């Protein structure tokens, strides 16, 4: 299978504190890659290096190379804005635009790209909300503020917002941590469906979720990628003792 993203010797810093150490990994097309690891080990930082969001934090920097379809996204000539249009992201904490309506939240990225034809826009908004398992709950109040939704609904709104612009690659940072089991199920179903068209990276604290939806799993610990392998192998026969400790819950 084809690799969409390749990461070579990626290290990252916040000011002087190094939080990622020489990460080497490849993200395959048309499947889900799960990232697991204890809190603070650098999972978010890792995926934020992949869409060039890390560098927008004051004092943050990185080294190494990230290739998107063999092209270095950190090359001088590359515009990070163009990269972020191709690589969508759902954040750990829901962050809808509070002053925009539900509809406008989903349409935010599209309008930017010059979408004005409202019939088409409506179609995309509806489809995105359906994919995010939110349409039924909001279809009668699309004009209301995005912030009027519950936390879990806001997270699904953010998923819809990211899907609406049809990125090629989708990075999801614990997208289900605020969701109830039913909504989690719908999002997992969505991942299974989306992987036919996208390369997806999902950070999760939920082992079962990683086991259920992903083809590959990477285990991060203290800023290093300890092990990266087929999900089935990681969960049945991990090569590294620390991975085993973590997935069996013997770990802090």
């Amino acid at each position, binding site marked *: 299978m084809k690799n969409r993203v390749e990461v070579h010797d990626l290290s990252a810093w916040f000011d002087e504190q190094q939080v990622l150490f020489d990460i080497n990994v490849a993200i395959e097309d048309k499947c889900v890659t799960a990232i697991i690891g204890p809190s603070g080990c650098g999972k978010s930082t890792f995926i934020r290096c992949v869409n060039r969001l890390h560098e927008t934090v004051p004092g943050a920097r990185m080294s190494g190379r990230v290739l998107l379809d063999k092209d270095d996204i950190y090359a001088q000539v590359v515009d990070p804005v163009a990269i*972020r249009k191709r690589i*969508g992201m759902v*954040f750990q904490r829901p*962050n*809808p635009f509070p*002053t925009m309506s539900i509809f406008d939240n989903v349409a935010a*990225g599209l309008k930017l790209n010059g979408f004005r034809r409202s019939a088409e826009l409506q179609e995309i908004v509806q489809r995105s909300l359906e994919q995010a398992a939110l349409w039924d709950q909001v279809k009668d109040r699309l004009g209301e503020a995005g912030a009027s939704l519950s936390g879990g609904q*806001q997270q699904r709104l953010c998923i819809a917002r990211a899907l609406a612009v049809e990125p090629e690659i989708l990075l999801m940072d614990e997208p289900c941590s605020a969701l109830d089991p039913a909504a989690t199920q719908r999002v997992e179903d969505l991942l299974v469906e989306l992987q036919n068209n996208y390369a997806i990276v999902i950070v999760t604290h939920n082992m079962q979720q990683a086991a259920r939806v992903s083809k590959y799993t990477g285990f991060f610990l203290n800023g290093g990628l300890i092990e990266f392998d087929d999900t089935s192998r990681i969960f049945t026969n991990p090569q590294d003792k620390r991975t085993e400790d973590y997935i069996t819950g013997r770990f802090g």
Partner: protein
Amino acid sequence: MAADSIVKRLKAPGALARGRLADRAFFIATFIFAGLVLLIVAAIFIELAVMSWPSLIKFGPRFITSSDWDPVAGKFGALPLIFGTVASSVIALLLAVPLGLGVAVFLSEVSPPWLKTPVGFLVELLAGIPSVIYGLWGIFVLAPLVMNHLAPWLNHYFGWLPLFRGTSYGVGLLTAGLILTLMVLPFITSVSREILATVPRDQREAALALGMTRWEVIRHAVLPYGRVGIIGAVILALGRALGETMAVTMVIGNTPRISASLFNPAYSMAAVIANEFTEASSRLYVSALIEVGLVLFGVTFLVNAAARLLIWRVGGGQKRARV
């Protein structure tokens, strides 16, 4: 063990009662303070009304509809004064809002870090300059500039607008508006800047992750998030502009006349009071001046109420995130 006993002590009936008492005292104290403010406002209003009584009953509503302000002839129509106050403030806001907001956006979003402190400091310094200095500067620097350069230029290119007809003699509505622009700029800038600084990072990141450029992030995420606070900053500035006395008096021309051209001299309510109070000879004259104060009070009140309404309308549609 120790924690246990602290909990016990906190839960003891006496402690609870004491807590409730403190709560009650706090409530009453703040209530009194708030009431005091209301009382003062009411007292000012009543005092103004009482003192302007002779003029109030003599002129009635004509006081604010007539444009004849001629103290020697005993004619007191405040319309030109209302016009001067409102027009100069509107000019100031039209210029200062985009400019001040632009400076705020520059300082909080665009500027390199080493430039932020000095520029921010300079802007805040503007707020600390006494208004008589602005007035002096207006007379000696700005007025000649307007007369010799700005007014001819405006007249040449935009003379087809009634606003820019005629010639300027330096002092006038335009000069007053420009001075006020400078004076309210720091309010708009420093308040907006603080508002922009409170926009959470995750809002910017949400916008960035959608592939927005820096400008688009500001336009679609940062400014909308801060809009209520920014409107507040504008109201603050407007209040300042409406009531500014000294600097305006020195450059507006002190002529009670309504004219379409911004080059012409005008008069403002605050300026009239400051200029004519000492020479007000008759009881009627004095009470007319006080009634001007009453009108100014009313205009400020109305403007603020309208602005509150605007904020309420804008803010009402957006329930804050309840994550």
